[in-house]
Every structure is written in structure tokens, then in C-alpha cells.
């Protein structure tokens, strides 16, 4: 026990503690009533806090110009993920210039520690950690996100375009 109670100390008395606490609360309350705009708390969930765009929140799989998924299924994110929560199934693409793409990409976000290592590992800017952070769900299975959720959820409005462009790269000769 780290709390050391001194017998007979003033802090042991009940009423002085309560009264000084109430005075503090009342002071803040009256102050807040007259300075509503300066209030630090939010009326969640009606009001929501906007984090900076750099916030490492919900994963986003980026898309190419044509709207198809950017990920090449190299599995580097899955390899780098310390929580081992990324599961990818790769397949041969119809388009020979794509070659390999994921037919299944799942993140178990309940296991995810939001470290951002996946984002760092990705060689093609295919996965990013977006600013969204609020993701309720009714049971465990709602937290395994698939491609549909990660790349095309409504909040993304048709998908976030990757900044790496295949055609540009090709024209540049690499």
C-alpha cells in the first residue's frame, strides 16, 4: 500500500475534504456557465473531436486512378505487423501489368495496436492510417475489416487515391 495514513492528520477528517472539493467544483461550474465557449469538454457523441490528418487511426487501403486497389499483396505489412493481425490472400491478376493483387485483405482491428508499422512497411503507399478513430460494432466479427471496408467504406467517398502512380513510374523508366 502506497497510501500512508497519518493518524490524526487533518486530511483524515471527512468534512473539510468534501467542502473544499465542492467549492472547487462550484467555482468551475459558475465559471463555465459564463464562459461557455472556453469549455474543454465535448458533448459526445453529438460533437466530435477532429484529430489532425496525421493521426494514426483507422486503416485505409488506397486505390489507383481507376479505382482498383493499390495493394500488390506483397505481404510486407503483414510481415512487419507486430500484432500479426493482417491476413492477405494473393492471387494472379488478369491484367499482366498488375500481376499480383490481394483477393482478400483482412485486418483484425481488435488485435491491432495502431502502431503504424504496416504503413511504414508498404512499398507502394497502399495502406495508410487515416484520421478516423470511432468505429463501434456489435460483436467481435464486426472488427475484422475486409477490402470493402478498408478501401471503399462510405466515409472515404470512393477511396483515397495513392500518390504512387504506376504510369508515371513506367514513363520515368523504373
Amino acid at each position, binding site marked *: 500500500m502506497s497510501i500512508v495514513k497519518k493518524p490524526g492528520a487533518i486530511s483524515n477528517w471527512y468534512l473539510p475534504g468534501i467542502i473544499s472539493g465542492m467549492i472547487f467544483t462550484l467555482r468551475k461550474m459558475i465559471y463555465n456557465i459564463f464562459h461557455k465557449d472556453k469549455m474543454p469538454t465535448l458533448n459526445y457523441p453529438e460533437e466530435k473531436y477532429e484529430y489532425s490528418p496525421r493521426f494514426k487511426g483507422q486503416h485505409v487501403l488506397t486505390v489507383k486512378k481507376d479505382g482498383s486497389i493499390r495493394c*500488390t499483396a506483397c505481404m510486407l505489412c503483414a510481415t512487419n505487423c507486430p500484432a500479426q493481425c493482417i491476413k492477405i490472400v494473393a492471387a*494472379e491478376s488478369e491484367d*499482366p501489368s498488375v500481376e499480383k493483387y490481394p483477393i482478400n485483405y483482412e485486418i483484425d482491428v481488435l488485435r491491432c495496436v495502431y502502431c503504424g508499422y504496416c504503413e511504414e512497411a508498404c512499398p507502394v503507399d497502399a495502406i495508410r492510417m487515416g484520421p478516423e478513430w470511432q468505429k463501434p460494432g456489435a460483436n467481435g466479427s464486426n472488427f475484422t475489416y475486409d477490402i470493402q471496408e478498408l478501401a471503399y467504406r462510405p466515409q472515404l467517398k470512393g477511396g483515397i487515391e495513392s500518390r504512387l502512380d504506376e504510369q508515371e513510374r513506367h514513363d*520515368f523508366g*523504373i
Partner: protein
Amino acid sequence: MPKITLNGKSIEVADGITIIEAYKQLDEPIAHYCWHPGLTIAGVCRLCVVEIEGNPRLQIACNTVVQDGMVVNNNSEKVKTAVKWGLDFHLINHPLDCPICDQAGECELQNQYMEFGKYDPEMAEHKVKKRKVVDLGERIVLDTERCILCSRCVRFTNEVSKTNELGIFNRGDRSEVGTFEDKPLNNKYSVNTVDICPVGALTSKDFRFRQRVWYLKDKPSICTGCSTGCSVNVYYNEEGIFRLKPRFNKDVNGYWMCDEGRDIYKHINKENRMVRGRYKKDGAWCSTLPLETAKKAGEKLRTYSADQIAVLVTGQYTNEELDVFVNYAVNKLGTKNIFHWKNNPDGWNEFDGLLLRGDKNPNSKGLQKVLQKHTVGGEWKDLVNQIDKFKAVVVAGPENLQAYPDLKEKIGTLARLECVVWATADDNIAFEGLMDFTYLIPQKTSVEKSGHFTNYNGLEQKVDVVTTLLSDSLNLEETVELLVGESVDMSQREKEDMHVMKKNYFTTERGRL
């Protein structure tokens, strides 16, 4: 015997070997692409350069024969610089494909770059674009951009498979490996070119994109595809087995294996296996634990007299298992009617001159030996001739049902008997044709048990447990124990199961080790 000094270590080597072979004997690292111990020397990659004392210029180790008193090193600054910029030349037109390249993780370019390279490329020109994803027949996909023109694959088709499909076309930086007019590369040993390709230019269609190699573990085993018994490495993880690669064995297969043998992992994986024991009762299949099925089968068998029982056995089990099984048949069942079931008795002794044999069982020799020991043994046709005599048959069936194309027809014949006890590793739709009192007892496959296989030549080779795919399946020894009514301790198996189950879904399904 010349005495030479390599990197300061002196070694006595055989006359006439090359410096690179001496390096390999010493286990000293040396960079190389085009040299392969199983092929002739090409000397085209110039990466194996070494400094020989008294020689002003660097020499290639793969094409320089050792001489007495040679003092060689490959760790001086001069050599390192030469390798580094040699590598830069190789990578001038090499695409940035590692993320989608199947070779990544076992790529010599990656390895050498990490060891010798680490330079900033000094090439300002655009890369030369070549053809990608070229379909080269049934098993191979070629990416000409990734090829470093080491010519290993070309030499392989010239020297080993002797089919001469591959060649290098055009000149300079437009040189391209390929087949004439993209004719398919469909020889029986084609996937060896994928193994020896030091980069990801040749990839196997079967393995393509199914796993990254760093998720796989490998263990030595023996190929059970035919009676040659090639030494292989089995690549697996918790999801199952993904590929086989040849392992050097100078007595059997050298550096190679056939394409057919590479497919045997498919029947070993869970999808094709008999998972639960099954028996047929009143026209309906009931499924139980393997050991329950074996016990039930044993009880049923005891109701027959010795001369009503026939025993059919295939050479797909280890020597130890066959010994126990035949012993059981002769001493416990008391029958002399033991028949050796061959996959194709007509083409039994076929041999294609390199590795592949017509006898598709890993252990026919071992079986013959065991049968001789007990002076029993007949053929399938002997069984058919006297089939009316029998009421029950115990089958130590093939592990690889694919090797027995006439399975359905054979099952049709056996279905005439009253009781069939069949030990099998694989499941097959043909088993549906069996009647009441059929007992199908799930068996382990060659990668799940240890023992010995005797190949066509009488060479006994050891196999060890590689991995366990179905922990409650039985080996033939355990099956025999249960058939005679003894019990088998399965507690260890349950522990294995728990070990797998405790892990999270993502860990088990993803294939982490």
C-alpha cells in the same frame, strides 16, 4: 593433391577442381550466379571473382582450376569493389519487382546486394523494358525483365533434361531468355529451372503467389512419387505443405527431381485427406474417430476365419510399418493370402533415363523384402482369381490415390466382398462404391511419420516427421495394434491439437510458425 590457401585458410583439395568448388568445400562465402554444381561452367556472371596472388588481374573462381601453392582471396577491397559494381551491371535493367516477385526472400540478387552491394546506382538511363508474365507452358511463368542471363536454365535444358527448349535470344541489353516462338517448356523436369534460377525470372505456376517464402519452413524428406525416392526438402507451415524442392543426394537424384514428384504435396494437404474414420452401416456412412473405426474393424475381422480373409498391401508404407502389418496378417489373422497391389504392373519397370520410374510407390522393394521374409505374396490378378473364396479383405491402401488411376475399378472388384477394411490417407469419391461393413481408417502420410523407405536400387533411406497435419490419424503400426484389440495412447496427440487450437485464428490461418 594441390595445397592452396583460400582467404588465409589452407586446404588440400582434389586435383582438377575449380577454385569455387574449393570455396564451397571450405564453406567460405563466395558470390556467384551462373555456376551451379550440377551444370557445366559458363563463366558469364563475373561475380565469383577472386584475387590470386601473383596475378595482376582478378580471375573468376568458377573457371579457374586450382594449382599447388595458389594463394587466393575474395575478401580484399579490390574483389569487393569488383563484385559490387558487377552487381550494379546486373541490376541496370532489373525491375523493382521484389514486392510481387516470388523469389524475394530467397533471391540471390537480394542476398548479394545486402552483402556486397549497398551502393547508390550510378545509371542515369531509363531501364530497358522487356516482356513480363510470359506463359511458358503448364508449370512455368517467365519474366524476362528479371532475368540476369546467367544461362543456368538454358544449360539445364541442354545438359540434364536434354530437351533444349530454352535459349537466349537477341544481343546486348535486349538479350532475352525464352523459348523459340514461346513454345511451351513442358518437359518432365521443367520446374528444376525455377529452382536453379537465381532470381525470380522463372517462377512456378503452382507456387506462384501462394506464400511468401519467409512464411515457410523446410525439412528434409523423401519424395514418395515413385520408386526412385528422390531426396527433397518439404516447405510447409501451419496451413499445410506448399512445395517440394530437390535436396542434393549424390546416390539418388543429384540436384534434381521430376515435376510429377512436386505435386505429391497436394494429396498430403488436408483438403484431400481422409479426416475422420468412416464405416458403412445399413447403407449409410457413419464417421467416428480414426481409432474407433480401427477398433470396430478389428472386432468385425475377428468374426471371420483365417482362410476367409485376404490381405492387400501397397508399397506406400515404411519398412517398419510393413513389417508389423505383414506380421499381423500372417501371425494374427493367420492368412497366407497376402497380395501385392501394384499401380501399373505392365509399366512397372519403366524408366525415363533420368529419374522417373513406372513404379509409383516409394517402397515396393521394402515390401517385396518383407513378403519374401514371410514367404507370402501374390499379385492383384491372383486375388481376383480366387475372390469368391474370401469374405473379408484388409487393404493397406495407397497413400497417394492419384498414383492408382484404376482405383474405381479396383474398388468395384473389392466391393463384392462382405467386409472391407481399408487403411488410407487420402479420401476419394470412389470409396462411396463400397458396401456395408466397410471401414476406412485414416492414415498418416509420409511427412507425418518416421521410418525407412527402400528405393528401386535397394537403398534404404530414412524419413522423419516433417509436420503433423491431422493429428489423430494413425500410422499402420498403430492401426494394427487397434485391429488386434490393443489400445493406443493418444494423449500426446491431443496436446498437439491443443497447441494449435490455443493460437489465435489469425496466427494459425495466416501460417505463422
